[in-house]
């Protein structure tokens, strides 16, 4: 089971998180907090007038799962429309709850399926979804997101 959760992709994103910075000129910002773990991050999104996500970034502190997930989130929504990002959010949410089986059900998750085993760790699902909830909150103009 251990290898299922801490796959190389996750460990690598934890070591070298992508877009790990405060994004100047962000159009959407939100703060995410997981009171259970103390995971705390900010997500920045820059949306152009046509509704395309030009850039996404995050900063803060958290466990490997939350950090890697937020890192991969910023990579995967870049260049997507807000609508597409929200679809990804929904799919990712279903994935980490174990309600979406990527092998048999159509989806747009691509590399994000590395989190497909996490539903077996109920206490860690919130770690994986924190960055995504915060991104969703930013796009919905919710300033503070808590996973409790």
């Amino acid at each position, binding site marked *: 089971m251990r290898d299922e959760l801490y796959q190389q992709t996750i460990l690598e994103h934890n070591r070298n998180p992508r877009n790990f910075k405060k994004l100047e000129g962000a159009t959407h910002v939100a703060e995410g907090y997981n009171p259970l773990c103390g995971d705390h991050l900010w997500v920045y999104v820059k949306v152009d007038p046509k509704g395309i996500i030009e850039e996404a970034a995050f900063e803060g502190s958290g466990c490997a799962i939350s950090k890697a997930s937020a890192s991969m989130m910023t990579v995967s929504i870049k260049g997507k429309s807000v609508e597409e990002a929200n679809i990804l959010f929904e799919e990712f949410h279903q994935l980490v709850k174990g309600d979406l089986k990527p092998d048999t059900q159509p989806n747009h998750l691509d590399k994000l399926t590395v989190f497909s085993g996490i539903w077996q760790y109920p206490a860690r699902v919130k*770690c994986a979804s924190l960055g995504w909830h915060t991104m969703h909150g930013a796009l919905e103009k919710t300033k503070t997101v808590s996973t409790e």
Partner: protein
Amino acid sequence: MILKFLPNQHGGSLDMNFNVQKLRQEFPNLNIQVHGMPLVYLDNAATTLKPRCVIDAINAYYVTGVSNVHRGVHFLSEQATAAFEYSRQVVRQFLHARRVEEIIFTKGATEALNLVAQSYGRHFLKKGDEIIISHMEHHSNIVPWQLLCEQIGCVLKVIPINDRGELILEEYLKLLSDKTKLVSLVWVSNSLGTVNPVKAVIEAAHSQGAVVVIDAAQAVTHTMINVQELDCDFLVFSGHKVFGPTGVGVLYGKEKYLSAMPPYQGGGDMIKSVTFAKTTYNDLPYKFEAGTPPIAEVIGLRSALEYFQTHSWESMHQYKQELLDYGTKALLSIDGVRIVGTAKDKTSILSFVVDGIHPHDLGTLVDQEGVAIRTGHHCTQPVMEFFKIPATARASLAFYNTKEELDILVRAINRAKEIFK
């Protein structure tokens, strides 16, 4: 079968020869496997495992003795009432309280603290009065006082701690004044293991006329409690942290305060008579026990306390100190491990952080080896803030733990480090 006399297997004789392997056989939960590995249970500060006698006592009530207490005249009700009240005597003796009326059953330490805040606090404190707590309190000994401060306008003061996680007593003495009306202090910190000098704190508070509440949730397995010798005004603990069931706790209070305090909750059992014009409250301790109490749990708690007291404090203490020393050295032998909470007087709680691995990842990874530790802020967020960390990993040891189990923890941490290399 009379529940009151349902004997514990140990029969009450004091076991001077501390034999951990024999003792472990009393705890069926120690025999399970987790992820295919034998369970190594190191989360005793969160809750302790239950010996067979406790499970049997609860079982006996549910199989042959179910009844409500304090009302029926039938056989089962009288039997359950006798067993319930006998438990109160065992708790009185366990705490060395003067009178059985000073023992109130609650659903846990948290409810007991809320009871004191809402009943004593709201009745006897007023705007501008000061309450002192410490920086190392569990949230359950912070929030009830914050609520009280919001309600009546009293002021909360906090005793600071030093880098070892010890109270700074000089600062406490500076905070004390004639404005201080109540001091509420944790005896043993659940996140740091620090044992606080409660006797000195109580004496100083009394010299200013303040009452003192002691949170003994962790202390209850650490040291013998004598409330008369301590001279605390209130003391609380939870049954499940002393090998008893969840859902039951105890509030001890000096009779002079409990009698003067208004009821905390209204309902059955806490009244003598009810009319729409006037209700007369019941005597102590029933005044504070509205509604059907946790009967099976109270009976289970009695069994736990009787069981626990068959071991000598001296041998338990000595063994747990050995475990603490061994665990401390073993953890510090791992590169990148830092122990949080290094008080001189410390119980067998090991909070630590590992460089480069977040406590939650560590918790998940050692769980894969069957090792149960707690990770997080342990309901002491101000402590985490003080040490500038989001969380710690915590191994908290009970008298059934062994050095071999600590070796397994160390191996599991080393494996986690390999993965995160």
